[in-house]
């Protein structure tokens, strides 16, 4: 009984620590942002007030924040899921683009379908396109051993150019630098259709889909054999191979599933918000943001939901700072600093070193070490 109690205590303590480290990183980054704002003669208080009011001030603003959060949950999940298998999916960007294009294609080309079926097909097409895009990278890794980071970066730019080509040719709205609009039957249901409170926001059913997908990913990773195998490969591929797990198969599978999430993100963004795909000059950033989201969320699907909310607030609140005369890029700077802190485990390492030093000093005092 006593043991069990200690166990629970310990696990609670550990969870607290897991939350505390990213939280410290976030606080420090906000402080750094404040110093920067102050250094250029603006008030940090005004800046952050604008930021938070802009993102959470009323239901419409909150709705818009959730629109961004939706995409970030999915790209964050995508990066986190691959990471669990020891893979770094820096290609969420390209998978997102492929998902958007596939969704616009199916959403535009199919006609006369009942809305629910058309929406479903659009989302499936997007997810599959992303899945194939990432699965190919996984396949290359398994087949010839080429590194997934390099290949996914290359695939990002190939996706960008392929998407631009399709948008300027087969999918082109004549005379415009964007694609056709998807059919009304392919559009996701918006909250504003039933709720007066969300009248001025584009909040759509996608947020619920995204949360559901996150829970499903959590279940898949932690409660199924497939998830166990994927995590095992991520933990130690050699031991997994020895234990009879097909490492190559799991690498392909993990990349494929990871790509499904990013592709779905693109499809949902298209079917819920944009309704078209633009001719892009550069990458959209959603995939790279997914890296931040996954890391701050500790690569845990539930953590991802929370950190996607944080980054959603940052991104939607940023433009409101602009109105107060403070460049919205402060938000990007904060995001970059958070990422640096979390990536380097800065807080954890510093705490550890402090403890070690304390120990050594204590021992020195006692005269145990000379």
């Amino acid at each position, binding site marked *: 009984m006593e043991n069990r109690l200690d166990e629970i205590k310990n696990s609670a303590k550990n969870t607290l620590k897991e939350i505390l480290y990213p939280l410290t990183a976030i606080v420090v980054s906000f402080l750094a942002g404040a110093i920067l704002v102050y250094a250029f003669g603006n008030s940090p208080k005004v800046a952050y007030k604008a930021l938070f009011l802009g993102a959470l001030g009323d239901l419409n603003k909150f709705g818009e924040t959730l629109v961004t959060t939706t995409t970030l949950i999915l790209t964050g999940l995508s990066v986190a899921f691959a990471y669990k298998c020891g893979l770094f999916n820096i290609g969420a960007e390209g998978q997102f683009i492929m998902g958007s294009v596939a969704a616009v294609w199916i959403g535009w080309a199919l006609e006369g379908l009942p809305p629910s079926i058309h929406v479903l097909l659009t989302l499936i097409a997007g997810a599959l396109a992303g899945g194939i895009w990432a699965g190919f990278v996984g396949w290359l890794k398994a087949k010839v051993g080429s590194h997934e980071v*390099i290949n996914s970066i290359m695939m990002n730019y*190939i996706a960008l150019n392929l998407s*631009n080509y399709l948008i300027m*040719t087969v999918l082109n709205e004549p005379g415009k630098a964007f694609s056709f609009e998807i059919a009304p039957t392919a559009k996701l249901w918006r909250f504003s259709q039933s709720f007066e409170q969300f009248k001025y926001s584009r909040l759509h059913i996608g947020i619920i889909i995204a949360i559901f997908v996150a829970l499903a990913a959590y279940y898949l990773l932690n409660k199924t054999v497939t998830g166990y195998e994927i995590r095992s490969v991520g933990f130690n591929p050699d031991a997994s191979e020895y234990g009879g797990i097909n490492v190559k198969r799991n690498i392909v599978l993990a990349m494929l599933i990871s790509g499904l999430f990013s592709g779905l993100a693109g499809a949902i963004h298209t079917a819920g918000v944009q309704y078209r795909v633009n001719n892009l000059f550069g990458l959209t950033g959603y995939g790279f943001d997914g*890296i931040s989201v996954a890391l701050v969320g500790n690569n845990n699907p539930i953590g991802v939901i929370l950190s996607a909310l944080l980054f959603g607030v940052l991104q939607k609140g940023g433009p409101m700072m602009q109105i107060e005369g403070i460049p919205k*890029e402060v938000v*990007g700077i904060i995001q970059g600093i958070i990422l640096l802190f979390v990536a380097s*485990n*800065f807080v954890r390492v510093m705490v550890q070193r402090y403890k070690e030093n304390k120990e050594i000093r204590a021992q020195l005092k006692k005269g145990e070490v000379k």
Partner: protein
Amino acid sequence: MWNIITILFGSTIRSATPLMFTALGGTFSERSGVVNIGLEGMMTIGAFSAVLVSYFTGSPFLGLLGAIVSGAFFGWLLAFLSIHFKANQVVVGTAINILAASLTTFLLVEIWGKPGQTDNVNYFTPWGPFNMFTYLAFILVGVSYFVLYKTPFGLRIRAVGEHPRAADTLGVNVYKVRYICVILSGILGAIGGAALSIGSISLFKEGMIAGKGFIALAAVIFGKWHPVGAALACLFFGLADAIQTVSMSLGLDLPKEFLFALPYILTMMAVSGLVGKSVAPAADGVPYEKGEK
């Protein structure tokens, strides 16, 4: 016909110049065992700092110096976090890219009071057909080759990237070599950025790097982590870019998106062994942990 070839040649060299600096930087960093995804950000910072310093001092030479200092700082940051904190190098690189894009736009708005682009500043006007940067790039390719393959220090760099433990055993300071190489890659990346701002147009535009850092990274890999190979890859990618420009004026019906994507497709084929297998240094991307005494 001759006319077109001249244009194509000039355009190829001009497109390749910034890539060559950055790719050389990437070669040093990866050869020592540190993956540098942050090259894109380092180019951005370099392009901006060069304009910033030239704006305030009126001297493009000081501008170049400014780029070097800022590039060194970001190189140091990557080195410090990936060597001492054993941070994931890809994540730190991504963070540097995000930071660089935001920081430059932030300062652009704060200093020039408008988004989009800076004012015109003094820049390096061409000497003959090319800019000073082009000649410097070709010289540096030779220098880099010499340093990496003909000097003891180069041997140490390659040893540290292939087998840090063995190098350490033989008395090579692994951390020091990696610090030098990564800081050097920041400096070279920033010079590559400066070549785009004060080396061709006289200002900094938001988003002007637009993936060139990643193309340079592709050139490192396509060039098999060799300075001459990387430079040739840059020239080849520059040619793809030049063909795209020329084909428009010639009315050739080549989808420009295909030419844009070509460097990436070729690089993927290279790492997959379809066009001569590219193999990374063995310890590339792996943090080194000194053993206990």
